[in-house]
């Protein structure tokens, strides 16, 4: 069994997502976490100070949000599809809706099209909305929308 197949099995059967993340060092660098919400993957980037891009607000760097969303899409594909290799990014596009606060950032992905050679993934990114006391009671604010194409399967070898 390849590393990828073993990692996917650990994630699907035991809910252990670490082996999958270890296959993508940049995801590990951003400390990207995967959880399941009623069986649907949710990806989280815990806040840390090194993510700050604008200290005046403070806001998380837009490039870090984009990198996180690309990782969310890639991990989503690794988890859902039975690919033998890590899918290759063809393109990525992001619309920024609001600046990202100094809190955890979440993403959820949807595979809008899965062909033999190409998959299209939609990525929604949000944060919890703090109330006046600074608590996070569960209301969310969308901060970015993304979409990405990935090359799959045998098409990658060419």
């Amino acid at each position, binding site marked *: 069994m390849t590393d990828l197949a073993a990692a996917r099995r650990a994630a699907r059967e035991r809910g252990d997502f670490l082996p999958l993340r270890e296959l993508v060092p940049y995801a590990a660098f951003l400390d990207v976490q995967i959880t399941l919400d009623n069986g649907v993957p949710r990806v989280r980037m815990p806040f840390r100070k090194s993510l700050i891009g604008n200290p005046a607000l403070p806001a998380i760097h837009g490039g870090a949000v*984009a990198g996180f969303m690309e990782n969310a899409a890639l991990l989503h594909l690794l988890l859902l599809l039975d690919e033998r290799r890590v899918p290759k990014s063809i393109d990525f596009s992001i619309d920024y809706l609001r600046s990202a606060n100094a809190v955890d950032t979440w993403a959820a992905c949807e595979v809008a099209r899965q062909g033999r050679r190409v998959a299209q993934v939609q990525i929604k990114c949000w944060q919890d909305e703090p109330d006046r006391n600074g608590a996070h009671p569960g209301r969310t604010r969308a901060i970015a929308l993304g979409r990405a194409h990935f090359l799959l399967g045998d098409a990658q070898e060419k």
Partner: protein
Amino acid sequence: MVIDSVDETGARASMPDRPEWLGDTERGLIHTGVITTLVDTVSGLAAVAGAGRFEAIATLDLRMDFLRPARPGKPLHAHAVCYRLTPSITFVRASAWQDDEDEPVAVSQSTFMRSSSPSPALVQR
């Protein structure tokens, strides 16, 4: 990340090679997210520089086309140019490469919203 130059003609920045930048350990490829982060930064710098005055900007969108794989063991470079400036919006083009600027690993277009007035804190300098 190292900012190499910023002026009204554009901005240049580089990213040193690091093992954490990998996205595919089997094939040994740099994660495209690293390239996006570099391009986002250098595009924002070009947007600010292109305005000809210090002002706050907000990124509206950014699109990346990953033309060829980026390999570990060498740095990434990026160059962004503001090619159209309107009172409200700045349009920026960028590319990223490793060995040869004429063989980019990625090209990008982005748009930025300009602030309606110069940032007072920055203008004072």
